[in-house]
């Protein structure tokens, strides 16, 4: 990956240390993680599926969780972090509740996908890789959803929306910028 991305990734790792602050939260994370680990054997090859389950459960990979998983699959923590930061699916900081993914695949690009992304960015007030301040929405781009005949496409929580237009974006996403200005 590029140097710029390396920088962002290590920032992500630092932020992960600060996530679990209260004891209640810690208990939730630990018990949730144990529940997931109960379904596995403890083999190194299970690292990625375990991370996927934890990502699914918490919306990100909490530091406490990572420590426990590293123990369980018997790899050094740094190796596990190396795996987590390699794959685009894994997040080390909490993400917004609703995941919006705009496709930047070839067919979508050729049919104007970049204007859909601009419209989504405008509507939510964030750029890809960020969350809205109220943590309701997270925005990502994805290389290809696989619905190329319906280009340009985007997904919201894995639900595919095809033949998008800038106007249709308004039907699916609230105007976060408007809400921001409305706040007292």
């Amino acid at each position, binding site marked *: 990956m590029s140097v710029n991305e390396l920088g962002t990734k290590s920032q992500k790792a630092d932020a992960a240390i600060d996530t679990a602050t209260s004891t209640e939260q810690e208990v939730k994370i630990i018990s949730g993680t144990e529940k997931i680990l109960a379904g596995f054997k403890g083999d190194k090859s299970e690292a990625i599926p375990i991370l996927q389950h934890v990502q699914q459960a918490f919306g990100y990979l909490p530091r406490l969780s990572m420590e426990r998983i590293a123990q369980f699959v018997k790899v050094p923590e740094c190796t596990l972090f190396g*795996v987590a930061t390699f*794959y685009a699916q894994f997040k080390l900081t909490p993400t917004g509740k609703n995941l919006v993914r705009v496709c930047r695949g070839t067919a979508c690009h050729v049919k104007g996908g970049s204007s859909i992304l601009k419209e989504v960015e405008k509507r939510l007030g964030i750029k890809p890789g960020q969350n809205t301040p109220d943590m309701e929405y997270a925005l990502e781009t994805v290389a290809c959803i696989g*619905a190329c005949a319906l280009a340009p496409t985007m997904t919201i929580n894995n639900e595919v929306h095809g033949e998008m237009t800038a106007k249709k974006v308004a039907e699916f996403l609230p105007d976060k910028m408007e809400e921001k200005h409305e706040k007292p």
Partner: protein
Amino acid sequence: MKSPSDNVFPKQVKVLVCQGTGCTSSKSEQVREALEAGVKAAGLKDVVIDFTGCHGFCQQGPIAVVEPDGIFYTHVKPEDAAEIVTSHLAGGKPVERLFYKDPVTGEPIASYHKIKFYMKQQRLILRNCGHINPEKIDDYIAADGYKALQKVLTTMTPKQVIDEVKKSGLRGRGGAGFSTGMKWELCAIEPGPKKYMICNADEGDPGAFMDRSTMEGDPHTVIEGLIIAAYAIGADEGYIYCRAEYPLAIKRLYIAIQQAEERGYLGEKICGTNFSMKIHVKEGAGAFVCGEETALMASIEGRRGMPSPRPPFPAQSGLWGKPSTINNVKSLASIPVILNKGADWYASIGTGKSKGTTVFALTGKIANSGLVEVPLGTKLRDIIFEIGGGIPKGKKFKAVQTGGPSGGCLPASFLNSSVDYETLAQAGSIIGSGGMVVLDEDNCMVDMAKYFLSFTQLESCGKCIQCRWGTKQMLDVLTDITNGKGRPGDIDFLLELSKAVAVGSRCGLGQTAPTPVISTIRYFRDEYEQHVKKHHCPAAVCKGIVTAPCTHTCPANVDVPRYIRAISDGDIEKGLDIIRERIPFPAVCGYVCVHPCESRCRRGQLDQAIAIRALKGYIYDNAKNKSPKPKTALPSGKKVAVVGSGPAGLTAAYYLAKLGGHAVTVYEALPQAGGMMRVGIPRYRLPADVLDAEINYIKAAGVTVMTGVKIATIEELKAQGYDAVFLAVGSHNGSKMRVPGEELPGVVDGVTMLRDVALGKKVTVGSRVAVVGGGNSAMDAARTSRRLGAKEVTVIYRRTQNEMPANAEEVQEAMEEGIKFEFLANPSRIDKNGSSLRITCVRMRLGDEIDESGRRRPVIMEGADFEKDFDTVIPAIGQVTDLSPAITVDRAKNGNITANPDTLVTNITGVYAGGDAVTGPDSVIRAIAAGRLAAESIDKYLGGKGNIEEKFTTPEKAEPYVAEEGGVEKRQEIPLANAATRVKNFNRTELGYTKALAETECSRCLRCDLEERDED
């Protein structure tokens, strides 16, 4: 034609609703539920509602097919279910409004057996997709499922299986195209006991979704193929590595594996033999590089997906160090077919070294977008035009990108080529995963290269510095180029860097990342150079260079959005000034320009382009102050001679006199000035008084025009003290048809005829006129003939209306005036027949081959000749430049003067040339642009700065434009004089916009010039 699901429910009517990812996103689940409810309520006993996987035609979704007739319903909404139940299922009358409509003819087609998109395909890999329920193993078994596996396990040895697959000629469909049989053999010979068989279902190529459809629509075929492969190589454990972005495919794979285990096709003692196997599904986690086999295996092992060096190859040391084989979904899906039907049968399909079928994902600028499975060796033009239905909106084909980010582009010259591994490799591309993205004239090839590089740059694992940094460097250079910051040498630098990146990278990602760049430079270098040298994007795409595509595309960069705003603001005079800031011919352009601006208008992507030319004409018609501006520059003491008073010559003269202060004399051989504006364009398009006024405006800038003077040599001009000469003599000699009888009286070349009419000579054409040709000149000749009294005018053209180069509006107006068109005909001889001329024409048909212009080449139909009698025959098939050899400038073989494209200088110092004389027949606006360039160039040569910028207006603060909700207006057509009366005279055909029409049309403008400039 039998459907595979016929065996499942032989007598019933089945309604199969697609539940692939595409259709599900358009609510096909609700469609199915509504149909189930409707059928139950109506008590229809013999009707079964079920769901299938992806049909591969997602753009038409949601799709519902009614068997056994194969009725193909498209865009089905849940609300349509009631009508389908009542009208079709109960009443036996299919619902026509839901039929598929042919994108070219608009004809509704009931059954998929008759839909061209499907008819021309040979679906082997996709044989069951759209026909069976992918979550019911019995559907698969009824469609010959698991027969091949039984045959293999009970009657064949692993070696026999490998030999059969080798014989079939199957090559890896993941992209590399290595012989599948041989790949298996290399693993089979390795010692066991532990080996792994892996299916690569990571399909990361953007634009490819055939693996997804196969897994969603027919997961068992992949599993059966995988088990057979495992048997062949000696593995007892398998993995399917599927990318996480395909949740539905993963779900269906899990279900299928479980069902296969329940039926004994997986697990211990399969089919009662000693062979055992279990399959795991591993989800990818969002890394394109994991499609590379060593990275994929690392990912299965739980490590970072970084490729490792080969050797050792997976066959010797793969997953956890054990011998492993990795095959793509499509390769494995082909295996049951090969073993059921035999290797010889499979090898009979395809070509030379590329056997069998493969699946292409045909997307982009194409009418029928979807999955296309055809034999290898099919011609590209058949895939794009026959199956794909061609390019929508009448746009021109530009290129097709094959093989995703690892592949290259194929321009129009490859349309007649066969699509196979070898041909594409030679062309600098690959078949790859099968992605085929069609690009048209509105796509920029530099932008495409940048797009692909931004993708591979992001997905680079970072291990190899050439890939990690090299792709970043290349992306930076491409970004600069698309932002108008390209430097000389950038293009060659990209090629040099491409070599380094390809050679220095360990895996396929880095090795092929430069391919899109190399390929686009190879076939579209000129487009790159325009970006670098002229900051011009011909497709008007690159946002860093283009704000308003209309202004950008206009050869003279007239500020269209500003003058449109002037109309909306009610300031017509300002509008005229804005136009005059770039061109000295506002009326001519407003009346007759070929409007390249409209072809790129962004509104045209929504519905129809803005009528930019008509609005320009409206401004001229309604401006009160049409009078010229006073001369400004001080005399320079230099003299310039311009030869030819057409748009190129007069434009150059205007700027040289007014801004350069030079003493300019324009020499015109004909008795009247104006060039083709006078003698080529008829008066009903451009009235004489308007043209005179435009020419007077130019004369008022200090230009002397001498008519009736033909210049014989450059020397005579030099002798008169001219410091520079501009040759703008145009292209005035009509091309010959080269048929017998062309010299007969009554055969009058079109250019000559139009010139004679324009100069006031008496021209008689008789009653029956034939015009040969399909361009604007042919339309001019035909419509002029009507106005000269011809009762029957026929235009003979060798192709069809779609291929005519003439402006669509000219053709339309000609037809309104009663002019007949004989398409697909070409004269072969002309003979005298009494007092008439008899033309013998051959009949043509559009052949299959595509020529360099991207159109199908017409082919003569033998024995279909016909004859017709006329009084006059007017060939209008083209023009050539015919400059006397006494003028000693270099010229090409076709007579066009050779001039430097950046400065317009000829081989003689101080002598310049531009316009039709250099390019061959083109348009007024391009000649004007040439005149501007000549003026800059000559002024610099004469010691000036070459600055021809004119400012007549002060820039206004632009108000952000707020689009109104609703009320989307169609393009306002310009009113025309009544067709019956207008053919009796040469008065102007166009009546011009009224204020209301003009203002409505202006309100349609999207104000692209106000868009935020984004440099990314």
